[in-house]
């Protein structure tokens, strides 16, 4: 037991060192782009996993928080000149606050209908931002004025700093997840995910726990929204509230292993690698091929191993201790 714990810590430290020094070794902008994508979706997936993986509240509307974060920081930046660093945290706060009414509404239905309600609320937000031009530039969106290299305004002239920002965010998200896993909240999350009634009877305030985890999950997702806007220098409702963000957040977690610490990370690495291989074989010419492959992978996972990659290993070790 002690030995495997030590090995785990050793590997983890190695991985951390690797990730920190990677951009200094990798010079290709193309590869850096891929790494940024992987870190971004690992981060979003980890945020989603708190609510959807541990507590099994399967939201497909997390793009709501992504978009709110994105718009908050952009509005603060363009209208008031406030740095996106601050805007990012404020955006997180907006996402967190939004999760309260959204959660209140959506939790009134259970299971798949909860999922549908989250889709609906994310859609409503997109429609609102599309329709009301006075709110925030309407359907055309806006670009972020390019200030060249402006670290204080979260703008950089090369990809490396973005990589480090995301790495930092991912480490924060993973740390939060690991901490929750070990604490009372972690047990309560898994319990209510398995059986809400039994959890209630065991003293779990299910409503409060769901609300709290939704807030954390929303906060983190909103941070990603700010980041992405700064990264692509552009925002519009279709991009900010894009359904694909919601899908991919859930997808990487399910494939990698819902309710596990490393599930979303592993799932992202797997799926992004597949995408890259696909793109190099088939190019971008055939529309729909990427999602076709993703959906086939998802179906395979659901039918064969719903607990995902990490879940598979976890179950094997559990089975071993049950003998």
């Amino acid at each position, binding site marked *: 037991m002690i030995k495997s714990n030590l090995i785990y810590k050793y590997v983890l430290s190695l991985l951390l060192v690797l990730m920190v020094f990677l951009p200094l070794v990798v010079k290709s902008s193309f590869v850096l782009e891929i790494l940024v994508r992987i870190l971004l979706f690992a981060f979003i997936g980890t945020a989603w996993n708190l609510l959807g993986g541990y507590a099994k509240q399967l939201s497909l509307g997390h793009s709501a928080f992504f978009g709110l974060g994105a718009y908050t920081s952009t509005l603060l930046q363009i209208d008031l000149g406030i740095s996106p660093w601050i805007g990012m945290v404020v955006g997180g706060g907006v996402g967190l606050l939004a999760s309260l009414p959204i959660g209140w509404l959506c939790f009134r239905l259970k299971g798949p209908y909860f999922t549908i309600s989250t889709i609906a609320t994310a859609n409503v937000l997109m429609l609102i931002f599309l329709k009301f031009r006075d709110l925030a530039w309407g359907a055309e969106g806006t670009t972020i004025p390019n200030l060249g290299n402006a670290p204080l305004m979260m703008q950089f002239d090369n990809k490396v700093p973005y990589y480090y920002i995301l790495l930092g965010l991912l480490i924060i998200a993973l740390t939060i997840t690991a901490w929750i896993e070990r604490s*009372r909240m972690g*047990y309560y999350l898994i319990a209510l995910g*398995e059986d809400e009634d*039994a959890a209630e009877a065991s003293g*779990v305030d299910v409503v409060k726990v769901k609300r709290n985890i939704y807030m954390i999950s929303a906060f983190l997702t909103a941070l990603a929204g700010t980041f992405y806007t700064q990264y692509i220098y552009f925002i519009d409702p279709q991009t900010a509230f894009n359904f694909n963000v919601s899908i991919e957040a859930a997808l990487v977690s399910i494939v990698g292993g819902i*309710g596990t610490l490393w599930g979303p990370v592993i799932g992202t690495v797997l799926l992004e690698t597949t995408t890259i291989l696909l793109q190099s074989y088939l190019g971008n010419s055939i529309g729909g091929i990427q999602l076709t492959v993703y959906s086939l992978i998802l179906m395979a996972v659901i039918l064969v191993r719903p607990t995902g990659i990490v879940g598979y290993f976890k179950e094997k070790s559990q089975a071993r201790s049950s003998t």
Partner: protein
Amino acid sequence: MSDALVINNLNKKFGGLHAVNDVSFSVRENETLALIGPNGAGKTTAFNLIMGFHRPDSGSIKAMGHEISGLRPHEVCKLGMARTFQVAKPFGGMTVLENVMTGAFLREPKTHASREVARESINFLGLGPKEKFAARDLTTIDQRRLEMARALATQPKILLLDEVMAGLNPAEVDQAVELVKKLSSRGLTIVIVEHLMRAIMAVAKHMVVLDHGQKIAEGSPDEVIQNPEVVRAYLGSGYVKPQGESKHD
């Protein structure tokens, strides 16, 4: 000894079905009360009402002196009442230890302390060697033990046991009876819903009989089984012994 649980004029309707109809009874501290009745009599509904899973239409439920009708289940649990479910509801993906820790966390917010309380509860119920087993891999009786251990870990004063002996073989029933007695010896007030007469007789001195949502009898086991209403409820009118005569065929 004061009353641990007092039910007064409890009523609950589901659509046209009067599931619990003006039921009243009291349970003294450290007493074991058996709640019996034919299937569909309203026993589990009564439990659900007491624990807060449903809101009663009218009536009052007092536990340890507090009015608890209308409270949510976790609030009731916090006040000192725990239950097991008729069909065991383990947290399948968690181990036995993790399951029971979930209950222990109610009183012990820190993981370390919670683990200690959970272990104590697990050992009390005889599941010690299996603490690392995945809950879904347990046998039926072990899952029942797990339910009890998890409930016990919330450090309740009142324990509601819903048909913990259903589907057990005779040896297992004996074990279950011992467990219930052990729980009572810890000072717990117990309300047990059960069908198995010999099990009930072994643990309870006080019985309440429900039929079609109404209380039809209350008293000691001997009094109750001779009550014509009770016989009628379980076996039909043909079996009711007219006073002083022997049973017809």
